[in-house]
């Protein structure tokens, strides 16, 4: 009994912590999809670049020397966000803008075919380019916190829960980032104009909003957010140039679960996936973690096809 309860609470806390980071990862993709309606297959690989950016900031650019082993990784991760945002900005400027935005709004299929091919192409280039530049050796951003834990408890029945310190900080960083992004989107002028451009690009143009610029900002933000999430994951999971493929599916599952176009939905979608992944180990072998995610995914979509926060009525 005690042991079962302990296992349950342990899996629950692990799920919540990893779920917060998955949530942030999904929000990056959800922002891009929500504002631009572009299916970005390269999002996982942008995340991979974010992991390597954090890795090199930490090891090669003096962050480790300045901030030490314990908190250096988190500083490096927060630096990787803006760097990848700038990268995303230029990817949009040079490539994505050619197949999206006002230029394609009058085309059949709104340019989705070209977007699929282009982002898939970018993904392949980044994966194989990454292999060339970073090599195939597993990298990781380890901090001493990755292998130490806080003990909560003992609570009732002498049950204690151990919280991995690195994951705990990861979750806090995720939540704070999510909070800042939400404030920006809901309160600031630029955030409101992003939402207007998402709602109705033509009417937004009538208001004097440069829709292509709004898309560029959304793409940069989405890339930066996912890069931060990637860096946070890298404190616990080793990575390689093809790691994006593993996560991009989870990202899409999270965005669809939350309801396409809803940022808060994408966060809860990611959180759900984290919880299912960790809790499934209580009753299923570890190898079936990812299978469990998609069984639950299918069940939720079966009963609520529009996702948690999606609207059934398509906007006019």
């Amino acid at each position, binding site marked *: 009994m005690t042991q079962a309860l302990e296992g349950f609470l342990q899996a629950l806390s692990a799920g919540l912590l990893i779920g917060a980071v998955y949530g942030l990862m999904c929000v990056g993709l959800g922002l891009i999809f929500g504002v631009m309606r572009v299916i970005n297959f390269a999002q996982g690989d942008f995340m991979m670049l974010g992991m390597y950016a954090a890795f090199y900031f930490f090891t090669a650019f003096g962050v480790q020397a300045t901030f030490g082993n314990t908190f250096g990784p988190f500083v490096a991760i927060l630096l990787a966000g803006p760097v990848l945002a700038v990268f995303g900005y230029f990817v949009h400027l040079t490539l994505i803008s050619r197949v999206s935005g*006002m230029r394609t709004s*009058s085309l059949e299929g709104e340019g989705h075919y070209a977007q699929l091919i282009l982002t898939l192409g970018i993904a392949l280039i980044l994966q194989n380019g990454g292999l060339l530049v970073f090599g195939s050796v597993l990298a990781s951003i380890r901090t001493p916190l990755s292998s130490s834990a806080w003990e909560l408890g003992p609570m009732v029945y002498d049950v204690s829960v151990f919280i991995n310190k690195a994951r705990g900080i990861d979750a806090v960083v995720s939540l704070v980032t999510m909070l800042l992004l939400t404030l920006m989107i809901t309160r600031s*002028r630029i955030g*409101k*104009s992003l*939402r*207007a451009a*998402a*709602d*109705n690009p*033509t*009417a*937004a*143009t*009538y*208001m*004097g*909003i*440069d*829709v292509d*610029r709004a898309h560029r900002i959304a793409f940069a933000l989405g890339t930066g957010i996912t890069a931060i999430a990637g860096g946070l994951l890298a404190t616990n999971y080793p990575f390689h140039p093809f790691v994006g493929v593993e996560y991009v599916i989870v990202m899409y599952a999270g965005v669809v679960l939350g309801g396409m176009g809803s940022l808060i939905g994408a966060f809860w979608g990611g959180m759900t996936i984290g919880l299912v992944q960790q809790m499934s180990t209580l009753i299923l072998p570890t190898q079936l973690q990812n299978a469990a995610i998609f069984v639950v995914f299918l069940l939720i979509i079966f009963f609520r096809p529009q996702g948690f926060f999606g609207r059934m009525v398509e*906007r*006019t």
Partner: protein
Amino acid sequence: MLRIDGLTAGYSAIPVLNGVSIKVDEGQFVAIVGPNGAGKTTLFKTISGIVQPSAGTITFEDHDLLAIRPSQRAHLGIAHVPEGRQVFPSLTVMENLEMGAMTEAGQRDWKHNIERIFEWLPILAERRGQFAGTLSGGQQQMLAIGRGLAGSPKLLMLDEPSMGLAPTIADFIFERLIEIRRQSNLTILLVEQRVAEALESADHGYVLEAGRVALEGNNETLRADDRIRKAYLGM
């Protein structure tokens, strides 16, 4: 203020507008009437830059409008209240109005404008926190007009503000427009299918048929014209 000369525009190869010339002077209320498919909405979309013309010129004040990017045209002082309202459904009423005030002039005059808009269209003040997508058609139309006014425009372009509304609501919106114009002296370009009402309140009118200006004239000339009386006014 606005001068359109020999404008030809359309989708793909088929021109919807065929050599249209229209002039709006400062302070004027100009109405463009005509049947469905005459090219009225396309004309507005061309002025706003959503449709590219294949020939002709558009001059606004001293600017060659066609050389200016679509998103910059609002900043010159052109407000487009589009056909079918097109409010931002997932933004609140207040946020919709803020979007209307993205222009420099709109930022500068925000306090003054919002006061007047709420005075003219009090329902917007009442519903300010509500999502625009949950408003009724008439309320959305009022919001679309308020959103246009929030940018302190020099020229207000209204595309069929009565479309899809119950006659009493449409009447109310017309009455509001006339009141707004009386108080603000705004230059207005209106596209309408309710020909009688449109010609009654406008200074000058154009009849657009199959992409051409079939007839133009001031208020009295048009209302006295036999063709208009028969075809549009049912007399």
